[in-house]
């Protein structure tokens, strides 16, 4: 689709991002040592750190991906909200305080605290880099999705802008400025989304000017000579939703009927919003593509009650299938979301920015409050977008900004700027985690390069530039994938590679360094191999049809955690038992 740009939106956006960058430069001047660069001298207050957790964690996947998925498929997107938040329970009750006591700058520091092993540091650093890279892809894809409607620029331009801005933030300042960028973003994201939800409740639901007829089919074909919409070249006058708007007074996604034959509900309360939605019918759009590359969207009426149940999306369709193997994708992803949060390196390093374990605990509680508040809002935002006639059927990631646009250019500009800062905040944390793994773990500890404090910081800044460039390339490559879906992969890999090692190190005295190295290697490689051999990769990344992908897939379902997490635990136990004599036992001081 072609988006009209707004001068107001561009002005607000530029002002917002400029302010964030200036703040970053200013704060960056304070952090010169490795302790300042990687961990903000451990002096961040617990409340600021808690909100920064929210800023770090509420990534493009949460804001853009979940809203888009709920708007397109209903409850399935909300399952991500539930799983993402539940993961913080593992972080708070199991990981937070011990990891603070054991570590210094990086995840590898914590895992290696008992053993002082170069091999363990090498594996932990590689796992950090791989997981951070997996998590970076959806953030960059989200950035590309944002600039299309806001600035009228192509996807690659948005990706490049985020890459440049983040590299500046991380390369100039490190954890101090990253923390404040995340704090500002976390605060604004929750506050502004609350405003949008209040406006949605005030607006309620209403019908389009005319019911959408079942033959209102919309087509799009991408040819070598250009894009055709309804058989004619794409233009501002001939867009995918042009005919819909002209004939029915709405775009994609609208209410088909309301309870008691009403045309409009007026303002609704927070509970009544779902009660009315469940009793309504909604016009959704079914997508199909023929062998000539013509994509067709056909209207399908569905009840609100059905859209508030799991299983409507391709990711979770197995929930509605009676075969056990079909349900394993759902079970495995929910397990990965639960266990993945406490295994994400960019989240774990935030525990080193506070002064002690009690601050780590309190900041996690604040983080859960802010993150939970946002995830409650996602179901309102997604359903609001689903029924507001604003969806771009070619890109679910644009849903939240397009919803905000229905309340005016001002709110659209603010939401887009915050969303862009959302990406900046998360990507900064990821690149910082990766840079720490390269400079502190690999260069200094594994390869034993003679780096003093300033040398480590310099090496980390160079690494952050390289990681930024890599992230831009991947963001362009994976443009069309839903960002929540991509983050699901990152959680699977993180849970498989890191969680068995972290948990067993804390709770099983017979854990050896060989056991941890083996478990992390097996978990990482097995989950990566599983993802690459899955039907989802074949279909959504390599472009095979769903039927061909299902036939060619080497694994029976696409989400690996339900297999690879237990495999990591099993590997650790077996290898540890076989290598007891090589590891000198030390008490569990962290516990």
């Amino acid at each position, binding site marked *: 689709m072609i988006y009209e740009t707004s001068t107001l939106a561009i002005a607000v956006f530029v002002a917002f991002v400029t302010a964030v960058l200036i703040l970053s430069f200013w704060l960056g001047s304070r952090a010169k040592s490795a302790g300042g660069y990687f961990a903000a001298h451990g002096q961040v207050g617990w409340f600021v750190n808690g909100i920064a957790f929210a800023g770090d964690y509420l990534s493009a996947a949460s804001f853009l991906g979940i809203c888009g998925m709920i708007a397109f498929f209903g*409850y399935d997107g*909300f*399952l991500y*909200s*539930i799983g993402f*938040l*539940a993961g*913080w*329970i*593992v972080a*708070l*009750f*199991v990981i937070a*305080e011990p990891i*603070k*006591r054991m570590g210094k700058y990086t995840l590898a520091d914590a895992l290696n605290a008992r053993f002082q092993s170069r091999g363990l540091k090498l594996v932990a650093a590689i796992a950090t880099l791989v997981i951070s890279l997996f998590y970076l892809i959806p953030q960059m894809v989200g950035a590309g999705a944002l600039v299309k409607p806001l600035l009228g620029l192509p996807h690659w331009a948005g990706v490049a802008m985020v890459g440049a801005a983040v590299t500046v933030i991380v390369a100039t300042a490190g954890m101090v400025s990253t923390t404040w960028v995340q704090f500002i973003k976390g605060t604004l994201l929750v506050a502004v989304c609350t405003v949008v939800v209040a406006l949605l409740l005030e607006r309620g639901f209403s019908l389009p000017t005319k019911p959408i007829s079942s033959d209102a089919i919309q087509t799009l074909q991408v040819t070598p000579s250009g894009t055709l919409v309804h058989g004619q070249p794409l233009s501002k006058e001939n867009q995918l939703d042009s005919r819909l708007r002209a004939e029915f007074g709405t775009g994609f996604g609208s209410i088909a009927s309301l309870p008691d034959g009403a045309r409009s509900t007026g303002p609704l309360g927070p*509970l*009544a919003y*779902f*009660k009315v939605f*469940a*009793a309504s019918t909604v016009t959704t759009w079914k997508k199909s593509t023929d062998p000539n590359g013509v994509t067709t969207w056909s209207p399908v009426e569905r009840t609100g*009650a*059905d859209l*508030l*149940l*799991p*299983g409507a999306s391709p990711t979770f369709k197995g*929930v*509605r*299938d*009676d075969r056990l193997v079909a*349900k394993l994708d*759902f*079970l495995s992803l*929910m397990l990965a979301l*639960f266990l993945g949060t406490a295994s994400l390196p960019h989240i774990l390093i935030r525990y080193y920015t506070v*002064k*002690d*374990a*009690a601050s780590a*605990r*309190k900041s*996690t*509680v604040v983080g*859960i*409050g802010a993150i*939970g508040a946002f*995830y*409650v809002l996602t*179901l309102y935002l997604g359903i609001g977008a689903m029924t507001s006639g604003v969806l771009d059927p070619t890109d679910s990631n644009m849903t939240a900004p397009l919803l905000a646009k229905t309340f005016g250019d001002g709110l659209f500009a603010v939401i887009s700027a915050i969303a862009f800062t959302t990406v900046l905040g998360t990507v900064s944390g990821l690149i910082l985690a990766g840079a720490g793994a390269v400079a502190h773990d690999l260069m200094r500890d594994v390869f034993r390069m003679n780096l003093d404090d300033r040398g480590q910081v310099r090496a980390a800044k160079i690494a952050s530039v390289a990681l930024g460039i890599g992230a831009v390339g991947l963001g362009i490559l994976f443009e069309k994938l839903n960002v929540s879906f991509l983050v699901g992969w990152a959680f699977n890999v993180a849970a498989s590679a890191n969680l068995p090692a972290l948990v067993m190190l804390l709770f099983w005295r017979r854990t050896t360094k060989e056991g941890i190295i083996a478990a992390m290697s097996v978990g990482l490689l097995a989950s990566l191999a599983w993802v690459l051999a899955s039907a989802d990769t074949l279909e959504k990344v390599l472009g095979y049809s769903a039927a061909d992908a299902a036939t060619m897939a080497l694994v029976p379902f696409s989400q690996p955690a339900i297999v690879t997490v237990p495999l990591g635990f099993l590997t650790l136990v077996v290898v540890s038992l076989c290598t007891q004599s090589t590891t000198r036992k030390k008490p569990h001081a962290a*516990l």
Partner: protein
Amino acid sequence: MNRRARTRTLALLLFTLYCVLYGTFVLVAAFGTFHEGKATGGLARGAFAGLSWGVVGGFGLIVGAFLLALAYAFVARDEETGS
């Protein structure tokens, strides 16, 4: 049992409680809601105020996590310096 050990025990108890709640929700979604593609119970069942267990359970897990976190922070408030 020292204060830190008591706090750790409480943390693991609360963690187990949440695991049971989350696990029940996921298992009910997977095995108790649909039969032959039709919603027959579980998350589709009405809870209160016209809301289904899907909506109530989802919001409940999010709000419940925060309440457990608050309870833990309150009980562990005296263990201020654990570094």
